[in-house]
């Protein structure tokens, strides 16, 4: 605790890494003025906050602490991955603070020590509802982005298997169905996250989109993506092409790829979509799902596949199901087997304490009783130390 306080006070003079946390900056300057007075006031914050903004350097000592991501980085790295309520929180607090938790640290050690010559290892993050699986995934995405990996982040695979207004027959393969809207949406976000890579990766074969459009071999991938965004009809095929290219080229070892899929159980479940003759659509018949499934197989190397199971958006699954076997079904389990399961539990006492202090610090808990010990006990009991419950409880207070 003391170490981080000292580091905190010494840092402001360096002003490095675009540390744009405005409250921290204010504290910095005031601490320069009167160090003696500020030290006891900073201590409470140091209990739940760490200034280490590079996930690569997070370790057990930072466990339970919040770290903040600069807002520009959030827009660049995680445009579409964060949960909706967290995005609202970012807007309210004007800062994005994620808690460093054990499952994420575990994943970091695995990723750091993984041998990229071997076939990709698949990690499945699972847990009860609202325990922080998506947040862990976003933490990992941030880590890999900082490390310079290419990130293929699918925010919610469930969106691809339900509520699709436009289903077109695929031009490439008559049996499959296209989803132009979802594909173009994803391509846009993909472009935002991986600007630098789009120029470097070159296509390895010619792709003919239609009579007039085609992409030559050796063109940067960015062009393919542009093609997909302008010609929305071909967006799903573009996605397939992008995935194929990335898979082929990352085996060569020039860059690392992280495939981060949230709600991976959607790929092997059922869909609520129907064809024109009212017959149900199975996931294989969707181009996007088909291509993504190919990505999930472990026949390539040079990266990692981190996925999350999600019951909340899942279709036709009971609300009590949260284990991989239940949510993936036999097909999905066999497809993903072998994988490394990572359980995300509810908050520990320390983490709960940290989260509570954070809310207090941001002046989110306005109720008088919420600031007392009794209030804290009450929150702890009523939320059962579940992050989602706690967040919903704290919102109206």
């Amino acid at each position, binding site marked *: 605790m003391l170490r981080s306080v000292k580091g905190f006070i010494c840092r402001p003079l360096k002003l490095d890494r675009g540390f744009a946390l405005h409250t921290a900056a204010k504290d910095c300057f005031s601490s320069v003025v009167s160090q003696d007075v500020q030290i006891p006031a900073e201590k409470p914050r140091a209990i739940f906050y760490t200034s280490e903004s590079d996930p690569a350097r997070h370790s057990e000592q930072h466990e339970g602490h919040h770290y903040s991501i600069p807002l520009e980085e959030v827009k660049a790295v995680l445009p579409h991955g964060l949960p909706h309520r967290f995005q609202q929180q970012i807007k309210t607090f004007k800062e994005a603070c994620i808690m460093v938790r054990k499952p994420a640290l575990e994943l970091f050690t695995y990723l750091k020590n993984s041998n990229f010559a071997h076939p990709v290892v698949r990690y499945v993050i699972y847990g009860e509802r609202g325990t922080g699986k998506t947040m862990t995934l976003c933490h990992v995405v941030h880590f890999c982005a900082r490390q310079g990996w290419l990130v293929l982040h699918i925010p919610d695979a469930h969106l691809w298997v339900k509520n699709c207004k436009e289903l077109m027959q695929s031009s490439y393969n008559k049996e499959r169905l296209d989803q132009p809207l979802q594909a173009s949406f994803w391509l846009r976000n993909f472009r935002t996250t991986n600007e630098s890579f789009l120029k470097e990766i070159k296509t390895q074969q010619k792709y003919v989109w239609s009579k007039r459009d085609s992409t030559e071999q050796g063109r940067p991938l960015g062009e393919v993506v542009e093609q997909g965004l302008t010609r929305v009809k071909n967006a799903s095929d573009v996605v397939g092409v992008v995935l194929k290219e990335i898979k082929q080229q990352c085996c060569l070892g020039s860059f690392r790829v992280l495939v981060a899929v949230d709600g991976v159980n959607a790929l092997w479940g059922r869909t609520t979509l129907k064809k024109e003759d009212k017959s149900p659509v199975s996931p294989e018949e969707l181009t996007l799902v088909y291509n993504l499934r190919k990505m999930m197989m472990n026949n390539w190397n040079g990266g990692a596949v981190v996925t999350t199971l999600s019951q909340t958006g899942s279709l036709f699954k009971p609300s*009590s199901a949260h284990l991989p076997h239940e949510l993936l079904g036999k097909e999905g389990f066999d497809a993903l087997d072998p994988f490394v399961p990572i359980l995300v539990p509810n908050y520990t006492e320390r983490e709960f304490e940290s989260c509570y202090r954070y809310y207090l610090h941001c002046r989110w808990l306005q109720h008088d009783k919420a600031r007392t010990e009794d209030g804290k*006990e*009450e929150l*702890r*009991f*009523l939320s*059962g130390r579940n992050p989602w419950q706690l967040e919903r409880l704290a919102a109206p207070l």
Partner: protein
Amino acid sequence: MERSDGVGRAQRPDRLRLQHQKWRQFNYLLKEIKTLRLIYTTTAAWRKNIAASGPEKYTEAFIKKQIEEFDLGKRHLANMMGEDPETFTQEDIDRAIAYLFPSGLFDKRARPMMKHPTEIFPEQRKIQWGEDGRPFHFLFYTGKQSYYSLMHETYEKLLNVQKHQDQLAAQGISPQKEKKNLVGSRWVTKTELEGMLLEKLSDDDYSRFIRLLEKLMTLPCSDIEENYIKKFSKEIAVQLQKVSVEPLKYDEQGVAFSTGEGVRKTSRATAVVYGSGTGKITVNGIDVLHYFPVLQDREQLLFPFQFLDRIGKHDTTCTVSGGGRSSQAGAIRLATAKALRSFVTEKEVEFMRQAGLLTVDPRVRERKKPGQEGARRKFTWKKR
């Protein structure tokens, strides 16, 4: 049924005779029951003050005859059932009647019964005049003979006491009066007095009588007439029932625990609260967050612990069945509050009681009535 043929009668075998005897007894009993059903209902069933409800209906001789018949019938019934007539109690009679005349009627009061005539015939005043029409009591023509005779009697006692007092004063002994504790007793109510006197009273009469009694009580030497006064005073039952708090039990590991039961609407819950713990609650083997996803139910469970400031200190295991989610939550709340009594001082138990944590919620679903759509809602009223 009896044949007057003398020849056939002598030849009838014993077995048949016994059967015939039994049949006669049975018939007799049937007649009794029939007549019972026609006229008789118990005083309790009437539920109003029949003592003064009108002119007397039954003579004393009539009542006596009924009692004789009842006793005879009782012996016959005992014989029929194969039991000893001497030790045949009223409960045995009830059981026998229920066996011989099974009835599916819902109202217990409508079923066949055989009770002592004093219970069946309302205790009314027997006819107060003789065969010549002359009344027995000298105060008959006042209209309220028992009341006035009672007033006279009480006044006589009062005079008695005063005379005794004067005697003691004449002897020079000052009468010592100990303060009698009147807290635990009350005077008879008007209805009870009417039942005792078997005639109607007015409020004014009643208050006069009570005032007289109180005056008698206040006199120093009223101890002599204590027996008489006792006839008109009743003990009030102790209001606050001391509910004993169970002591803590200890299980194998030495952890203190305590059980409690709770009900609410149709839910029944039992809770076991352990002395040391982290505030975890398990319901039917499922964690409380999963069993009660609604915040309101969890708040109900929180209430007893929060009230006693023991939120994170006890582990609880509950089983609950019946009812819906809200009533199950209420039942568990009551059960945990009852279990927590063992861990807590008496003062805090009193606080809990006043907060309503230990009271069973008496509200149940109200019955739907015919002619209405629901319990209270009437059908839409149409003018025409």
